């Protein structure tokens, strides 16, 4: 067991270090949320005036949404790295060694979670700068971050599963493009739920992105309903667990195919 933990630590270190050696990636992942926050914040500023929107300032409303969206999108692409490792023979090299099998996926997910936390904090601070208010305080910010990271871990696991099964970058790109944006728009990242068409509201009920946004916003409210926050968090934890299980199954399929 300790062997699983130390191996996961080593693999996490490896992924983190490799990430830091890609300055382009760091730049893009920092600039993208800024652009989203400023662009969408300006574009949709007036929609809070629509009767029934239920929020005072759009930037207050949008910031938690961008936190969740950022974690979702970085996680969606995490399978690309695994495809590259398989193509280069890195995975096979570790499979021939005593390295714990779980660490080969877990290291990626832990790295994703750390990156997710850093990104969340950056966006929250950025929101503050452009005038967002978080009445829920530190507890609310923590709840938002936990939910966004749970979502990211689950989606990251799914992305790894797709990567290891398809083993093609093209498939990965197609699936991510096809899924990530609709998933975002089928949640209240940009638009209050009450103003969505009825069928979208029903779909959003089962959308993990909506769970995360919903819980994050609730946590940041002036008097949060912690029941809502914790229940969404529970579903997200379950979602993450199921996705991680699927990823380990997918990895076994790969091992059998060698």
């Amino acid at each position, binding site marked *: 067991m300790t062997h699983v933990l*130390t*191996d996961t630590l*080593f693999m996490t270190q*490896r992924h983190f*270090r*490799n990430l830091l*050696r*890609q300055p382009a990636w760091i730049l893009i992942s920092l600039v993208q949320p800024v652009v989203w926050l400023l662009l969408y914040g300006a574009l949709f500023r007036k929609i809070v005036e629509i009767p029934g929107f239920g929020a005072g300032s759009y930037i207050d409303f949008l910031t938690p949404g961008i936190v969740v969206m950022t974690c979702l999108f970085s996680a969606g692409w995490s399978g690309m790295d695994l495809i590259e490792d398989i193509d*280069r*023979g*890195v995975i*096979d*090299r*570790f*499979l*021939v*060694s*005593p*390295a714990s099998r779980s660490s080969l996926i877990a290291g990626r997910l832990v790295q994703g979670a750390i990156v997710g936390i850093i990104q969340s904090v950056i966006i929250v601070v950025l929101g503050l700068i452009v005038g967002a208010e978080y009445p829920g305080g530190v507890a609310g910010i923590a709840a938002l971050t936990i939910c966004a990271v749970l979502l990211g871990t689950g989606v990251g696991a799914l992305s790894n599963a797709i990567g290891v099964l398809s083993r093609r970058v093209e498939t990965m790109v197609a699936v991510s493009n096809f899924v990530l944006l609709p998933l975002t728009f089928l949640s209240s990242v940009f638009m209050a739920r009450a103003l969505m068409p009825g069928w979208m509201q029903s779909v959003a009920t089962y959308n993990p992105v909506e769970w995360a946004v919903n819980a994050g916003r609730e946590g940041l409210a002036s008097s949060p309903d912690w029941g809502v926050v914790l229940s969404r968090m529970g579903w997200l934890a379950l979602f993450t667990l199921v996705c991680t299980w699927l990823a380990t199954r997918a990895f076994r399929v790969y*091992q*059998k*195919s*060698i």
Partner: protein
Amino acid sequence: MDNAIEARGLVKTYRGDVRALDGVSLAAETGSVFGLLGPNGAGKSTAVKILTTLSRPDAGEAFVAGHDVLRHPARVRLAIGCVAQKSGLDLQATGRENLLLQGRVYGMRGGVLRSRAQELIERFGLSDAADRVVKGYSGGMQRKLDVAVGLMHRPQVLFLDEPTTGLDPEARVDMWSEIARLAGDEGLTILMTTHYLEEADSLARRLAIVDRGKVVAEGTPDELKGELRGDAIVVELEEQVLDGEVRRALDTVPELYDVAVEARTLRARADSGARSVPAVLAALEAEGVRVASVTVSRPSLDDVYLQYAGRAFSEADQEAKRP
């Protein structure tokens, strides 16, 4: 323990009815180099994958360093080092970082870990490049690092899948002396696959030739060559000729066997090359066939391969490349 590697009746089928291994048995004596030869797609890498616990055979059994590959894969993994055909290096990491991570997953820590990495960096002449990212390494440097990574935890048995493919002649000779040293001084058992027959000839104590998933010949290089009689004569012709014509012309030459014509190359065996060549040339001239060059050589493993697999390496490689 006499044989550090022993496999019996290995069968492996991949989806789409590819029979990669069709009953392969082999044995490598402890402390020796064992060569696995064969054309593209013969099943060499598949055999290595099974022996290194990476994939499971459909049938058969194998023992490496005294452990059952199927029952105790974890014990086998601790005892072996593996340099796969596909490098497996982390290109974003430096050479040293690759070595350190490899050591860590084998449980090495602290000073032991660091000094072992440094020792291998020096031994493989990578001192200048050790702290540079592997992406910038030449093919030869990457292959050296591959082997260093495989040796990091001091394995008893080392698998090298085409360790010299893509290396320039100088780097290849370096690799040869390193392999010989590992088996000689350090007492490692090494199984290596290769396409270079002269390499197997000089390094391996025993070797097996595989073709289409089967072992077609097995023995020491000398045994295998000894089974062939006489010298090999290779005649390059100036233009393409009909097989039948040439054969008829050469029927009259005494002590000449196994005549084969393929494109503009004529191959034959003779009890004595020196005695037969003039007769061969005379016969060809009488038939009006113009000759570009003639070579006579003692039997090589190439000829052994031709004898057993019934086609030249280059030919089988062509075949494997076809869809």
